[in-house]
């Protein structure tokens, strides 16, 4: 294992200290329990957006704390959902009196820990609602399983719901918008290499030199199947077809196209993927009216990418364009 770290058990706290030192203008960082809140929290009268999840997906979620996006984020251990008391303290620090929306990726652990946190927060008189993201078409959805995983769409939910919260809309409205984003977004990922969890010290899975894992999760969970390594012109359709057919997306739809790097894939490759995606969608008459290209929801040093498509309407587009000022996303 080769990583720029000290001890595996110190990875999360040392990265938080780095964020604290680098972004004191944007966030305040707290330890034991660990959470990050925007520097001007609580914003009185604004619904607070609180997310969290296992570490190892940076910049998600800590890099999305700030004006126009999250009010607070709680990082767990690497790939391990945070504990209820982290989310409770984060919610208390972020709550501006208008209620708190938990944004939770659909994993068994995340759902349970956020549930417990919501129970505790309500006991302290904080109004809490939860939106669960589950956009990964690689996993077959079913009532009898853990259901679809929350992946790329989570970034878009946090941005768009964050913009709505900035307009001081009600908790119910913001929750509805967040759910609309989740309902209109679909994702699929591919891994060329495995990530290595620091305390484990060895790759989570091993891939032959000429194979890739299609439908990979963001924790190195195996995907749909192994396929032979192929040019991007063949990989992108393998990722996009299940997305297009699932929602389904149709000719004339306006979409936000999000090409996300898994952590070990450089920027130049992501633009090659985006070029391929752009051509494919054009050939289907689907219009990319907004896009995001970069490594925003990663899986440690895994090489690979994910593609997320979100069907846009006018309201979602305006909210996407609204100003945001965080460590990882900034415009307007």
């Amino acid at each position, binding site marked *: 294992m080769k990583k720029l770290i000290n001890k*595996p*058990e110190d990875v999360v706290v040392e990265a938080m200290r780095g964020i604290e030192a680098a972004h004191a203008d944007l966030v305040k960082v707290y330890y034991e*329990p660990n959470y990050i809140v925007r520097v001007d929290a609580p914003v009185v009268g604004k619904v607070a957006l609180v997310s969290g999840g*296992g570490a190892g997906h940076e910049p998600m979620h800590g890099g999305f704390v700030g004006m126009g996006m999250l009010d607070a984020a709680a990082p*767990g*251990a*690497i*790939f*391990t*959902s*945070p*504990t*209820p*008391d982290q989310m409770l303290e984060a919610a208390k620090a972020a709550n501006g009196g208008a209620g708190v929306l938990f944004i939770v990726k659909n*994993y*068994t*652990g995340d759902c*349970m*820990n956020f549930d*417990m946190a919501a129970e505790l927060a309500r006991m302290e008189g904080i109004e809490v609602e939860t939106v669960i993201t589950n956009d990964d078409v*690689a*996993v077959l959805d079913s009532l*009898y*399983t*853990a259901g679809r*995983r929350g992946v790329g769409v989570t970034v878009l939910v946090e941005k768009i719901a964050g913009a709505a919260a900035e307009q001081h809309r009600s908790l119910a409205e913001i929750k509805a918008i967040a759910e609309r984003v989740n309902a209109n977004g679909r994702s699929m990922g591919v891994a060329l290499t495995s990530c290595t*969890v620091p*305390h*484990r010290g*060895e790759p*989570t*899975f091993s891939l032959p030199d000429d194979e890739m894992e299609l439908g990979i*999760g963001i*924790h*190195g*969970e*195996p*995907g749909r199947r192994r396929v032979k390594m192929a040019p991007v012109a063949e990989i992108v359709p393998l990722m996009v077809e299940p997305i297009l057919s699932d929602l389904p997306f149709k000719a004339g739809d306006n979409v936000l196209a999000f090409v996300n790097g898994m952590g070990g894939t450089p920027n130049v490759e992501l633009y090659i993927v985006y070029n391929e995606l752009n051509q494919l969608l054009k050939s289907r008459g689907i219009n990319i009216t907004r896009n995001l290209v970069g490594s925003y929801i990663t899986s440690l040093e895994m090489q690979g990418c994910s593609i997320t498509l979100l069907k846009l309407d006018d309201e979602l587009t305006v909210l996407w364009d609204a100003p945001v000022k965080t460590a990882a996303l900034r415009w307007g």
Partner: protein
Amino acid sequence: MAITRDNILTWLIAYINVVNANADELNRLDSALGDGDFGASMQRGVQAIGNKMQAIADKDIGTIFKTIGMALVSAMGGTSGPLLGTMFIQMGGKSAGKQVLTLAEWTETFQAGIEGIMMRGKAQVGDKTMLDALVPALESLKAADETDIVIALRQSAQAAKKGRDDTANIIAKKGRASYVGERGLGNIDPGAANAYLFLNTLAETLGMESTD
């Protein structure tokens, strides 16, 4: 014979060591089916138990379990944290105020813990989770001969072991292992592996104490 408060403290200390000794293996098992963090989470869990040892040294069994359960919830995270935390909290509720547990009382206490896991995680036997080791252990206890508690606990641990091994033949329906589906066949569930360690350590602790 019964399980005393001191037996339980001895058991917990032994279990701390067992988890630390098996953490790498638990991470490895979780890599095959999940995300490779189960051993690390368990280590944070038993470290939290260690930190509570002083505070619980003079408490009743119910308080011991409840304190441990809350510590696990705060320290572990992931799927296993809320589940094992809930198990201990529920066991604490059932054994509130007790200084010793008869075999029947331990069986009831353990059952309450398992029900807590089922309530929180909504899994069933056969889903390829820790329940596939815990529930057979409970069944074994229920069927056990009241007279020799050590033998009953050993049989219960053996039932957990068999349940653990049988998870290799199950296609997971709950938790992260459900994403791999059929490709997870042949691998045993890490949560079930831990359940066996936990129950075996209890049996061994009681076995040692009774031969003293």
